[in-house]
């Protein structure tokens, strides 16, 4: 978590649920292909992943172009189709899920293992990858990043795909405490 010299900002970060009690905001944020790929291009270097592109498509699916240097088998390149799962809500449904509907085969075990090892070395437990599913435990991820106190504010997080962009729908809700 960042630290702030401003005491008001620090207080807001320490207890956002209390500081912003009564807040009820619905935010729609389109993430265009260009923007997503700028974000991916800015990823830290020094990993076996040499190429990583996202290609959002209509009909709620997107493609990931991935090339990586895997042990023994060498460079592997795959185009994987992902379908975003149901909305994330706290605390009932904490997983941000993506079904892998195409592109990975049973033989891709080494690739999956490689990505999983990479993910585990950089992120906390809470990111699962297998040949049919990628899922991210949002509260665990936020906790790892130092934003645990913001988790209860995430009433709903829903990611969908349309042509050339992913749409992020956020519902932030801080219930006023009953006195």
């Amino acid at each position, binding site marked *: 978590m960042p630290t702030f010299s*401003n*005491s*008001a900002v620090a*207080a*807001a970060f320490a207890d956002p649920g*209390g*500081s*912003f*009690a*009564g*807040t*009820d*905001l*619905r*935010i*729609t*944020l*389109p*993430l*265009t292909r*260009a*923007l997503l790929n*700028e*974000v991916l*291009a*800015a990823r830290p270097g020094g990993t076996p992943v040499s190429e990583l592109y996202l290609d959002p498509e209509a009909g709620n699916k997107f493609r990931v172009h991935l090339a990586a240097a895997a042990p023994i088998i060498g460079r592997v390149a795959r185009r994987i189709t992902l379908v975003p799962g149901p909305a994330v809500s706290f605390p009932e449904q904490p997983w941000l899920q993506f079904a892998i509907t195409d592109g990975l085969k049973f033989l891709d075990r080494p690739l999956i293992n490689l990505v999983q090892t990479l993910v585990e070395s950089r992120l906390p437990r809470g990111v699962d990858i297998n040949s049919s599913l990628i899922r991210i435990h949002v509260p665990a991820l936020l906790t790892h990043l130092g934003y645990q106190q913001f988790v209860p504010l995430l009433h709903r997080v829903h990611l969908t795909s349309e042509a050339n*962009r992913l*749409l992020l729908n956020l519902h*932030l809700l*801080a219930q*006023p405490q009953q006195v």
Partner: protein
Amino acid sequence: MHPVLQHLIDTDFSDLQGSSVEGQFAVTDELVNLGLHELVSQLTKPASSTSTAPAAPAGDKTTVLPDTKLLLRKVKFEQLRYRTEAGRTVLEIKAGM
């Protein structure tokens, strides 16, 4: 500047088109008072410390934000309403890009 932020500025924030926010943003009196306290202490700081802007130390990790007007020019406000209720200040907002 972060490459993603640079990209947003270079493309005139066109990637954010279709963004919207709707609802209400509430701030407790406590937080407003903390902010006031902070403001007063800033304003009453000895002049010597404010007149000379300290140079950012090398390797400073604070993000330099661009002129927010650049972004705000793109925002269309449909509703912006201020009100108060017991213990908090509420801003009702409906805006999009």
